[in-house]
């Protein structure tokens, strides 16, 4: 007798481990804003690659609210990259923004709370 069946797997595949959050946080940036990626070097997990740290660009698109990957790894120091609001956990949720370096159309950097494999 199988432990799991195809329907169970289909359901899980769609919903389990979802990284989006149904949380209404006001965005700190909007498309068109000029931003600078922080130069953080956390010993734990981050989705901010070295090639983008300290780089300037402008916000192209807002992807909505996601878990902050840095904060989701058990036991590691949380970075306050997320939005700080009273009543909400610090550093655990962030609006994903997509930035584009000035003058380089078509070349996109993702500054997101999460990203694809």
């Amino acid at each position, binding site marked *: 007798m199988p432990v*799991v069946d195809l329907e169970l*797997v289909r359901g*899980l*595949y769609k919903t*389990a*481990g979802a*990284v989006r959050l149904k949380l209404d946080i006001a965005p700190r940036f909007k498309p068109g804003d000029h931003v600078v990626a922080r130069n953080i*070097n*956390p*010993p*734990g*997990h*981050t989705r901010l*690659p*070295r*090639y*983008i740290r300290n780089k300037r660009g402008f916000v192209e698109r807002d992807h909505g609210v996601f*878990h902050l*990957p*840095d904060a*989701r*790894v*058990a036991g590691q120091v949380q970075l306050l990259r997320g939005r700080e609001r009273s009543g909400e956990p610090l550093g655990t949720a962030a609006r994903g923004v997509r930035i584009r370096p000035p003058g380089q159309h078509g070349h996109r950097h993702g500054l997101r709370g*999460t990203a694809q494999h």
Partner: protein
Amino acid sequence: MNGIHDMGGMHGLGPVVREENEPVFHEEWEGHALALARAMLGGEHFNLDEFRHAVERIEPSRYLRSGYYERWLEGTITLLLEKGIITREEFDARLSDLAKRPRGQGEA
């Protein structure tokens, strides 16, 4: 972490070689590695970020020698052990059993 996985911008690694008509899996075990990781994620034994971090923590020279699903398998094993889902003793005993079998007689 400023690990070996964070390769964007590195020089000397050569061009990305794309395989023509690449199969979904090169070997059957890769499918098992994918299924195992997905099952663990689906069962919420760990989350995607923990999984990525486990892969990022692979020792650099081994990371560079490993294929994609080898890294998935190693990340999964690391978390299974760290989370206490399996013990080091169970894992070693199982490896020892498998090592005794003639090649080609593995099981899922």
